[in-house]
Every structure is written in C-alpha cells, then in structure tokens.
C-alpha cells in the first residue's frame, strides 16, 4: 500500500522533511516510485510567484520539441531549474528533469486567472499528447508556484538522486509526497501520485473500486483535462477539481460527493435539500474505498479525507504554523517531533481535516454536523 506524507507550514521548509517522514513508513511501500509536489515555493522560485512553472521530464528530442512548442505558443522562459543529479544504483537517469518558469504570452498577460488556468492546462495537455507516444515528454504540472518531481525508485534514493538533500534551491510551504507501492499497474510516470489539475492536487493510497464508472462520468463532462487515468487514483484529483472549480462548491462538499451520507443522516443537516439533490446527481462519483486522500486547493488549503468506512486511516498533527498529514503516525513524529502527540487528530469516517493556508488553523469538519 502506498504511503502518504504531506506537510503544510507558514515558513518555507525543505521537501526532504517530507521524504524523511516517508522513509519512516518504508515498510508500507516497496520503493517503486516517488512523487513530490510542492506549492508556495521558496528557494529559487520565491520571486517568481506569478509565473507558471512547467514541471516534467524530457528526452533530448523531447526537450527540443518542448522548447519549439512553447516558443510557438508565445511562452518565454523566465527561469529554469534542473536538479543536480547524483547517480544512484537502481535509478535510471533520464535526459532532462525540468522545472521551467515561463512568462505568459503577450496577449494573455492581462486575462483573468481562470482563463490563464485554461491556457496552462491546454498547453500541458498538448505537450503530453506530443510526448506521450514515444515518452519523449512527461508534463506533470504547469501552474504558478507549483512544482512536481517524479521518478521510479526508492523515495529516499530518488530524493538523493535529485540532490534534494544537498541543496536549498527548492523549498516550499506545502509539500505532498507519495511513496509508491506498485500493485495493479505497470510503473509509469503518469500513474504516479500526486496528480494535479489547475491548482488542485491530491494523492491517495488504496484501491479505487469504483474507478471505471467514475472515469466514464468525468470523461463525459466535456473537460479536456479529465484524461489520463493511468492510475485509478487520478480521479480523486479530478473529482476535487470538478466539485470545487466546475460546480463551485465549498471544499467540504468534496467529502459529501465522494462519501455521501445516508438519507436519514442527511435529514440532520441544515443543507439537506441541496445534499439530497447532490447525492442523486453526483451518484457516479461516490467512492467505496479503501482510500485516504490528501490534497491541496489553489488557495493553499490542505486537507485529508477518508472513505466512508475509514478502511485507510490517516493522522494529522503538528504545532501552530506547521502541520503534518500522514498515512502513518510515525511520519508525523519524524516531521514535527516537537508536537504534543496527545493533540494528534485521527479523522474518523465522517471527518474531513482542513488546514487553512499558511497552516494557520486546523478544522475538523464533521459531515453529520456540518
């Protein structure tokens, strides 16, 4: 089973903290891959907040294709970051690991953010389409202040491979890391968590038994971004995006979408009328677990939520200004050893832990009480 490690803080921290927490959970993953997603970047990117960052992997050929394509679309490179690779046995180095910050094309600079988000998503998808057939380009995310690294191998070794332990060039206030346990699918970079779409990201452990109907529902929504699905967990990110961005629902309704209440329970909610309609119309997006989902939204809110039977537990703990959301308790201890363990939160099946931007406030939202 995959292991999940997330930290949100008011100050910048090294992503290694998330990786080291993941390392304590090593017996739960087989080291078949690491996915790392950073938001609210410090280090090299601290002064580049408004510029979208394209994160991905390219072959020699892919790099040329990518540069030509981005140039043709009017994107101009503002900054490029590449990891200082330290060769590690067992990790096959690819040609280029990139995080490029671009200036928007001239005619897009004054457009509203929602339109820019559409442009960025379309551009990422076009790059994916160009590079996927021969795996010359992997484009993981293209969004301001978000950076993604993914590679196959043991998480700690992958982090060392990227030189994250030796450099301060990458820092962030939010980091999601997933240690991959390869089960159902061949190891493929697009199947590695965390997944990202237009500012929304999530990572998950467990199997999604309702994957096919959910995928079919999302793919029929007419959003070009709802593609991929090399992992059955990618739908969790897209459900989040669909709930919050497309439908405009507040974040806590994500819980109501993926784990709807029984009718008798809905009766106790003040928004029962809306919930009754939602439950019917969003029926295909109901999950059955077992899953623990950790993710963030564009404003920097970080959350944790479980399937309705809590078949995959998770824990949240920390101190004011820094919280860890982990699939295992030991991860929190490693990440924030100074916290008072007795204040740790173990969200139950009706709970959703929501940590506000800059790790200011932790809320346990209860689905029954709203």
């Amino acid at each position, binding site marked *: 089973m995959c292991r999940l490690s997330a930290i949100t803080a008011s100050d910048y921290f090294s992503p290694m903290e998330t990786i080291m927490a993941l390392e304590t959970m090593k017996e739960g993953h087989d080291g078949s891959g690491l996915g790392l997603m950073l938001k609210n970047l410090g280090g090299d990117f601290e002064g580049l907040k408004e510029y979208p960052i394209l994160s991905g992997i390219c072959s020699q050929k892919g790099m040329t294709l990518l540069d030509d394509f981005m140039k043709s679309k009017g994107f101009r490179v503002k900054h490029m970051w590449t990891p200082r690779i330290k060769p590690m046995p067992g990790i096959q180095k690819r040609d280029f690991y990139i995080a490029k910050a671009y200036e928007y094309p001239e005619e897009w600079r004054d457009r509203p953010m929602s339109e820019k988000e559409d442009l960025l998503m379309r551009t990422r998808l076009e790059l994916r389409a160009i590079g996927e057939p021969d795996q010359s380009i992997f484009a993981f995310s293209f969004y301001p202040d978000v950076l993604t690294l993914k590679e196959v191998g043991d998480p700690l070794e992958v982090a060392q491979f990227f030189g994250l332990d030796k450099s301060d060039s990458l820092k962030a206030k939010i980091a999601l890391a997933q240690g991959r346990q390869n089960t159902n699918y061949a190891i493929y970079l697009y199947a590695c968590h965390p997944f990202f779409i237009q500012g929304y990201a999530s990572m998950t452990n467990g199997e999604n038994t309702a994957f096919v109907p959910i995928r079919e529902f999302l793919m029929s929504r007419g959003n070009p971004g709802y593609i991929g699905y090399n992992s059955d967990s990618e739908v969790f990110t897209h459900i989040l995006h669909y709930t919050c961005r497309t439908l405009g629902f507040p974040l806590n309704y994500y819980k109501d979408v993926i784990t709807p209440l029984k009718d008798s329970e809905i009766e106790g909610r003040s928004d029962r009328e809306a919930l009754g309609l939602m439950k019917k119309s969003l029926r*295909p997006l109901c999950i059955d677990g077992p899953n623990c989902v950790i993710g963030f939204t564009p404003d920097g809110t970080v959350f944790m939520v479980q399937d309705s039977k809590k078949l995959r537990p998770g824990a949240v703990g920390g101190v004011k200004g820094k919280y860890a959301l982990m699939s295992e308790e030991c991860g929190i201890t490693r990440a924030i050893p100074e916290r008072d363990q007795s204040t740790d939160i173990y969200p139950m099946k009706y709970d959703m832990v929501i940590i506000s931007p800059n790790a200011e406030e932790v809320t346990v939202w209860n689905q029954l009480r709203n």
Partner: protein
Amino acid sequence: MEPASQLDSNYDLSIQDFPYIIEWREDRCTRCGKCTAVCPVKAITPSVAAQRLVESEGASPMPTSKKVTRHVVVQSRDIDRYCTGCGTCSLVCPAEAIKPVYNSHNRFLIYKNKKGDAFKRGGRRNDPSISTVDKLKFTRISMLTDPALDAGRHEFRVRSLLGRILPPEELPLAVKDGKLVKMNEKFIPPVREIFPIRIGSMSVGALSPTMWEGLAMGVAYLNEVEGMPVVMCSGEGGLPPRLLKSRFAKYFILQIASGYFGWDEIVHAIPDMKEDPAAIEIKYGQGAKPGDGGLLMAYKVLKLIAKIRGVPEFIDLASPPTHQTKYSIEEAVAKMIQAMSMAWGFRVPVYPKISGSKTARAVLNNLARNPYAAALCIDGEDGGTGAAYNVSMDKMGHPIASNIRECYLDLVSQGKQNELPLIAAGGMGKGGHLAANAAAMIMLGASAVDIGKYIMQSAGNCLGDEYNRCNLCNTGRCPRGITTQDPRLYRRLDPDMVAQRVVDVFRVADVELKKIFAPMGRSTELPIGMSDGLSVADRAIAERLGISYAC
C-alpha cells in the same frame, strides 16, 4: 382392394411426434383417476383395453391365454390435446405411477397449425441454452491488494434511482454562508429510491386474484416491515380502486398500454388517491412478443376484471400492437409523457417500456433530449408473456445484454449515464441466478432489473420452462392457479404463501447482491456501469459488451 383412405395413416400422428410422452406404470397405478381428472388439457384419459393374458401352471410350460379387460390411462394423439408436460398428473398421483417425459425428437411445431390457426401460448422463449447474462462472471475481486468488504459486517446500500436526474451542472444550488442552498426557480423531476430488482408488469386479469393479491401483499410487507423499497408494475389493466385509493398505491407502478384498459378507473380515482404511484410506465413493446399486442381472453374477463378495465364481462380484450395515437416517436412519446406527468402534477416519474430492439438507441436518444422522460425500460427476448403467437415468442426480439450495454455506452458518450436510468428486463433469473443476473446487468449499465417469470416460478411454483412445458397461461387453465380466473383453479394458490415467497425471494436477492458486491469492494452506491468487474469466457461476447475475456 381396400380404399386408400382405410390404409393410409399418413395424417395420423404417432406418439413420437408429441413433445411430451406420458410414462404410465400399470403395475403401480391404483386407478384412482386423479391424474386424468386434473390434466388441464385432457391429454390423458381413462380407458379400457382388452388384453391377452398368457399363463402357465405346472412343472412344464403349458401356456394358456385368456382375454381380460383392464383400466388404463392413454395419451391422446390429438394435436389439440397434446401433453404440455406440466406434470400435474405426477403431482396428484399417490403411487408415482405417471409422469410426462420430454421427447427431443418431437415434431410438434410442424403439426400445431390446424385450420390455419397459428400456435399461440403463454410462457417464454423456448430456448434452453445459457443466456449471455448467465455467462458473465464477476472477476474483479479485491482481496490482498486491498481489503474486501464484508457482506455480513459492513453497511450496504442496495438501492437504485427511478426518475430523471438532473446533471450536476444544472442543479439549482447556490453558496450562502459557506453552505449550499437550493434555489426555487427550477423544476426538479421526481425521483424514487427503489430496490434494484422490481416486479415487472403483470396485470390483474392475466394473473389470478390470489396470485396478484399475494404479490401485492409481499411487496407491501417488504416495504413496510423489511424496509426494502420494492416496487411492482400493474401491467395493463389498472388496479382495484380500493388499492388505488389506499396508502399502498405508492408501491405500484401504473402501466398504460395500447388498449388503455383500466385507465378510466384510474383517472376517476386520482382525486381520491392518498399517495402518488411509484411511477407510470408507458408500454410500447414487450420483449417476449415484439409487435404482438396484448390479449386477455374472454373467459378471464370476470366481474372484477371487467369493472377495473371498464368493459363488459366475457369479451376478448385485445390491445393493439402499437399505440393508435402514435404518429412519430418525437411528438407521440413526448406528448404521452407530458400528459401522464401532468395528471399527477409532475410528481410522478413517467417512462416508456420498449421491447429489446436494434432501434432502442434511437428511442433512447429521443428520451435523452426530453427532460421529462424518467427512464427507459428495455425488455429483452427472454421475457415472458401471458399470451402470444409462438413465432413472436420464439423468434422475435433482441437479447437484453448487448442492448442495455450499447444504450448505456451511448449515454456515457453524451455524459447522461446518470440522468436517464435504464431498466433491464427479460430473462432475469432464467437459470435461477437472479441476483447474479441483476448484478451483471447493473455492471453493464442498468439501474434496475425487472422480473416476471422468476417471481411466478418462485412465488407461485409456475411450471413453465424453456422446453415448452405447460405454457398454458393464455388458456385460463393454469394448473397452478397463477394465470386463471377460474376459482376452481386459483383456489389452489394460497395468497399468503405467495406473499411469503415474494418476501423470501427479495430477502435472498438482497443478501446475494451483497455477497457479489462485497468482494468487489462496492457497498455505498450501486456499481452501475462497473464493467471492469465482469468477464466472460467468450471473446465475441467480451468484445461486444466491452468487458474482459477470462478463461
């Protein structure tokens, strides 16, 4: 020289031409006469036969013969009195001396056309092969990759929705103080939460009073005591007015078909109805007999039936094969749905039922564009009927599995798979695997399934099978008392027992559905369209249904 007419037996039938041959054991028979009395078609009759008895006494053979007269049971060779194999004779025989045996060499259909009268019967398609639905297996088992659910411990919600469901993008919701609130300006179509197995349309009239009453009592018990929202369709012919005006009306789907029988009574009852019906089903076709209309024979039209249907007693009640008001699918179906919706103030889901057909997708797409269409029920070729031409039953129609699947995938391509529920009927439980068939159809894309024959067999011990056994539903001489209005026959059926069996069937189906869904990791919502859960050991079927091949 003898005339040819005395020599030529070409036009006589031998017993080998008949579908069932009576095996009668003279040595066991007590000559009680029960079998010949009970035979619904007079295929066997008591008779006397002169026999030569050869005997020998003493140490060495000294045979002597004498003639004796014996009472025997003989099988008729009159094609109009063919043995249907129902086996009622065996049921009543105290000495196990008689039984019908199927004769696979029979040439019954070749001769069953005397006087130009095409063979008509009740029952189902005479095809004993294993249906496609029964070939589907559930192969996606969560076990070690992730914990499976426990059918006995975890909470399951085996429920479906009947009614038009708004797409999420069109929900009239707004955010107020961080909460979603419903805005009032938009029409919300009515939606019912139901158990995903329904009792399909069988009319008061086609069924005996005891059978229908038993089914209705069972359904009411399931709803009110077991908490299972099982619904049942009236079939064409209305409901008894007292039931219409009772609080139980909400468990019934009222069917309107091409004869509009029963609707005068229904329309007059509307002002006095305490509850809305579960739904209105507009029958355009029946899977067992596409293109064949309905027919209730005169001798079934007794006082109650005549009253409910608003017709004189003892006349044939024929429903045309098509709705006579129908001009085109676009306007006629829309108008019918609109009219029926209006009758109950748009509080009741209204949907059409059609026979399985290559044209089902055309109907579906029409309905998908009609915001008042609440569902589409497709009745496959393995469905049953009370009366039809044999040729319609055996050779007309479309298998349900691929029909539902292509319709579901069509909805998926439009993003409307959750908006218009598909209901699959025809052959559910044909091989006895009701829950498995229902689960398979759900995973192919159905929201619910209908049963007819299955409940008649399990609740009323109907004798019919795919070897043309019994199938006398059209004659009013049902030996079980299920499809007859003859009190001498229907008193054989205890409505309380029927109700008990209905409850048994649904409780077991509920358990078995959970036993299927649990290891597949599904418990909260019905796994509609979860086609990755299915496999079949036939490449052509796998390809057609878009599921995996496993062998």
